[in-house]
Each structure stands twice: as structure tokens, then as C-alpha cells.
């Protein structure tokens, strides 16, 4: 009896310690980012590797927000990511719905093509896309990035949405169709309201992916006026590579929207991701 109790407490302790280690590992780099961003310049080198500086300052945030183009980059990223999130989720919902509810000729091919589109090195299509978008005036433009990001993110988002639709019984839209709705009305009035968590998770996922994208942002948009945050930050890093405080303050700012989004939706991702990934 006593031995079993000790055993259980020991197992709990081990469990808690292991989790604590994971939490520490996950948070430490972010903590460090935050710490350096708050360290005053005069302490930066002297106290460089201390866990917490003897004095903290918001100066770096102040100069990033007032004297740099980061507010502009931030705005650009917000526009691009939000638009991409909305468009890709809309397109992916329709496709995911088709995958979940219909059997149709060529379905395996369509899904195969979507899978392969996730597997090749995107570097290879930078130049062709540049050539495609340039005559349309979609380079050096936020709209161009939205189009490209929407295409990139739609396949995975479609698989994700498919798994959310699978969880909703077909009976519900059939009941709505018997009740006088077309399939589309049934989808809009019955199925989509029930998929809201799924839509949010998918939208958040796409938002995060668009927010993080660096390569195409760098290659398609050279003008600072239409730079996104990642491209802007990287430009800043290569120009002022010793101004650690400001770089990290900018990094923390870049992290805020996606971090907040993620904390809201991660619960639903656990529900949707496996099925999405596995079916993909």
C-alpha cells in the first residue's frame, strides 16, 4: 500500500519534472528575446549573459516604434496575413467540403496534386512567379503577396477543413435540404456555423504562415513601402547587426500577433491537425 503510494507520487513527480523541462526549453529562447529587448544599451555587453539585467528599459521599443519603419512593416504584414487568412480559408473550406462530402471522378488526383504541391522546394518557382506577376503589376504589391500566399496555404488548409467537416454528421445538411434548403444554403446556415472553431483554427494557421513567410516577400517586393515584417526585420538585421536591443524589440513585436492567435486556436488544432495531416 505504502509502496504503491510512493510509487504513484514518484511517477507524478517525474511527470511534472519532465513537463517542466519541456516548458523551460520551449520558453527559454523567447524569454531571452524579451530579456535582451529590455536591457539598456549600456548594460548590453557588461551583463550580456545574465539571466535578468539589473535595470530594464522600454527604450528599444520606443525607438523601434518611433524611428523605424517597423510600424509600416507591421501594418503591411497585418493586411497581407489577414487577407490571406480570409481568402485561403474560404477557398479551402469549399475544397475541404467537396473532399468530405462528395465522391467524384478525379478526386484522388486532385488530392494528390494538392499533396505534391506541398512537397517541392518553393525556391524553384520564385522566378516563374515573378515573371507571371510582374506584367500584372502584382510585384512590389501587397495584393501579389496575398495571391501567392493564398495559393501556398490552400492545400493544407483544405485538408484541415476536410477533417473538421468529417466531424459533422451528413444527416444535418440532409435534414436542412429536406427542410427546403439548397446544399449551399445548408452549408451556410447549418454546417459552417458548426465549423466555426475549425474555421478559426484554419484561419489562424494560415494567418501565422503568411505572417512568417520570408522568401517570397523578399523576392517579390523590393520596395520598403510594401515590405512585410520578416523582410523588414531581416533588412534591419543586416544593416544594424549590432543593435541587439532594437532587433529583439522588433522580434518581440513580430511575435505578438501570431503568439496571441496561436494561444487562442491551439486547442482546435489538436482536433484538426492529425486528420488533416494524415489524410493529406
Amino acid at each position, binding site marked *: 500500500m505504502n509502496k504503491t503510494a510512493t510509487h504513484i507520487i514518484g511517477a507524478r513527480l517525474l511527470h511534472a519534472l519532465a513537463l517542466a523541462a519541456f516548458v523551460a526549453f520551449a520558453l527559454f529562447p523567447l524569454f531571452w528575446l524579451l530579456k535582451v529587448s529590455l536591457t539598456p544599451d549600456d548594460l548590453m555587453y557588461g551583463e550580456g549573459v545574465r539571466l535578468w539585467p539589473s535595470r530594464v528599459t522600454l527604450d528599444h521599443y520606443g525607438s523601434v516604434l518611433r524611428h523605424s519603419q517597423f510600424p509600416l512593416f507591421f501594418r503591411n504584414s497585418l493586411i497581407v496575413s489577414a487577407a490571406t487568412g480570409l481568402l485561403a480559408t474560404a477557398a479551402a473550406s469549399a475544397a475541404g467540403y467537396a473532399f468530405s462530402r462528395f465522391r467524384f471522378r478525379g478526386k484522388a488526383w486532385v488530392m494528390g496534386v494538392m499533396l505534391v504541391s506541398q512537397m517541392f522546394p518553393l525556391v524553384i518557382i520564385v522566378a516563374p512567379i515573378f515573371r507571371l506577376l510582374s506584367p500584372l503589376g502584382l510585384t512590389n504589391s501587397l495584393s501579389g503577396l496575398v495571391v501567392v500566399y493564398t495559393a501556398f496555404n490552400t492545400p493544407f488548409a483544405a485538408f484541415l477543413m476536410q477533417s473538421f467537416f468529417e466531424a459533422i454528421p451528413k444527416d444535418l445538411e*440532409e435534414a436542412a435540404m429536406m*427542410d427546403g434548403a439548397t446544399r449551399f444554403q445548408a452549408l451556410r446556415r447549418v454546417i459552417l*456555423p458548426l465549423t466555426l472553431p475549425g474555421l478559426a483554427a484554419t484561419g489562424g494557421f494560415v494567418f501565422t504562415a503568411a505572417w512568417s513567410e520570408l522568401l517570397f516577400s523578399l523576392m517579390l517586393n523590393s520596395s520598403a513601402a510594401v515590405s512585410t515584417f520578416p523582410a523588414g526585420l531581416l533588412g534591419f538585421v543586416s544593416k544594424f547587426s549590432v543593435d541587439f536591443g532594437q532587433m529583439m524589440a522588433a522580434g518581440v513585436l513580430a511575435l505578438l500577433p501570431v503568439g496571441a492567435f496561436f494561444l487562442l486556436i491551439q486547442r482546435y488544432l489538436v482536433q484538426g491537425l492529425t486528420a488533416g495531416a494524415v489524410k493529406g
Partner: protein
Amino acid sequence: MATITLSNLSKDYGGGPVLRGIDLEIREGEFVALMGPSGCGKSTLLRLIAGLEEPSGGEIRIDGRRVNEVAPKDRDLAMVFQSYALYPHMTVRENMSFALKQRRLPQAEITRAVEGAAAKLGLTNLLERKPKALSGGQRQRVAMGRAIVRNPKAFLFDEPLSNLDARLREQMRYEIRKLHRELGATSVYVTHDQVEAMTMADRIVALNDGAIQQVGAPQELYDQPANLFVAGFLGSPPMNFVDATLAPDGALVAEGQTLARVSPPAGLAAGTTLTLGLRPERLALTDPTKGSAVRVDVVETTGTGRVVHLALGPQRLKLFTMDPRPLAPGDVVGLVVPPGAPLLFDPVSGARLS
């Protein structure tokens, strides 16, 4: 209220026919049960009528109008699903209003219809609840309410009671039947439960392997089943099937014992092997000297009587009796088959011979 006519209807998903050659006329105001084991095609047939599936061949008419090309929403049929398919994000009231809103009826009329239907089903106090907050029986009623509020041409029921416990099921059987009498609406009711089909339907359509086996009133199917499938599907405990031989004098001989005598059906030669269908409740017990000698195997008490499992040589029979005589496994008793009780079937084709 409507008539529904199916002619030569078939359905094939690509892996062989699920339904073939279905001809059926469902009359106005009639309560028809589509009955059969799982996989027999009964639900598919209902979904074809609903328009949720496309027929591969044949025709569906509602009130004489061909509806093969009509979308489900335009067929004006109401369906009660096995899962109830209540919209989880809507209250009971919204669930019941959905179809009427879809038709853009004036709000006052919707309210009146919903509250009328709710009163009829005892749902008045639950109107503002969501389905999650309802019991199984209440959900079932809401599903019914959603159907009747529309006053459709016909009701389609897809095993609506199979998720309820036995007592609720019995009660809902009665209520659905009563509603049908009040509304007089044409109803098509899919079930695998022979008790539901027997107790509720005006007519039963027995389906097996995608084809209609027999159509008729419940008692007719019970007393004069067209074949072994129908005979075996209806009745609990089910009908006994005994391999027997027809003697020249009309005696039916099984395991060396004469079980009964019949006037031999025309065209049936003596010595033919037959399958004998014997309803358990039509058999009686007597002393071993007076009837065919059989051995008692197992005795089950049901409360109203007893089900006695009997061994006739290697063959097994069940008998239902209210006879209070003491019975123990191993006893040898006499079996009496009253005249008129045996049904004769062709053992190969399964068809009834008479």
C-alpha cells in the same frame, strides 16, 4: 398528403445493385413500413424517395408527377432521421422554424405553427432549449415536431426509434401512430424491427437483397408469408423451419415422425422434401404417447409463458406455451401441430407452396 409511386426503381453505387426492380405504390394517407435486415436497401430506398440519392434507373412519382430530377428541397417531404439530425446551434424553436423560414412564411404564422406542433408533442416548455440540453426522448420529439410543423406531402422516417430505450420506444410507437391518425399524412417508415413494422404499419414492404419480397398488411405477411425470408423475419420467437418429407397420404414426416397431415398441394409429388414452417405459438404440448416425441432442451420463462426449446432428432424447434405443466431439460414430451398450422416452403427457392 400524397401518393408515392415507384416504378422499376434501381440503385447501383458501382459495386453491384443495391436496389433492383422496385415497384411500389404508396397510397394517400397510408402508413407503410419498409422492413428488412441491415443492408437490404431499405434506407437507400427511403433516400431515393427523399431525393438525397439519385436513382440509377426507374422512376419516382409523387402525386403522379415525376420527381427524379426534383431537388429534395422541392419535393415537400419531411424526414425524421435516426440520429434526429437536430441543428445543434439552434434552439428547439429555431429547429422547428427552419423549414418555414426557408419558405419565407410570415413570422406570426411560423410562431403559430411551431407552437401548435410543440403543444401537440408536449414540447412547449422546451422551445428555448438547445438540443444538447434535451433527453433522447425529447430530441426524438423535436425531430418529429420539425417534420409535422411543415405539414408536408409525406413523412419519411429512417429508423427513428432505434436510439431510444425499450420503454420509450414503445411509447413513441404509440404516439407516432396516434399522430398519423390525427394528421392522416402519407408515411414511409424504415425499420429493421419487425415489432415496429407489425404494430405501426398499414402495410409492410418486406425487403431483402435489394428486392421487394412481399407487400401486404402486417397480419397477411404474418399468416401468409410469401417466402422463407418473410416467414423468418416476422415473429418472436421466430418461425421454426423443419425439413420434412411429404408422404403419399399427405403426412409430413420429419425424423421418422409424422408431425402433421395436409391435403397435398396440387403438383407436389409424394416423397418431395419440403421446409415446414411452424409458428412457435401455434404448437402445443401433450403426453409423449399422444404426440410426436420430442426432447426438452432448454426452458425460458418470459412471464407471459415459456419458450421451450425442443429437439426433434438433430433438428431444433421452439415452442411458446402458457401450459403450466412441469418441464425440465431432458424430459420427453409430445408435440402437437394443429391442422392448418404448418406452412409449406420449397427448400430451394424458399417460396411458399399452397
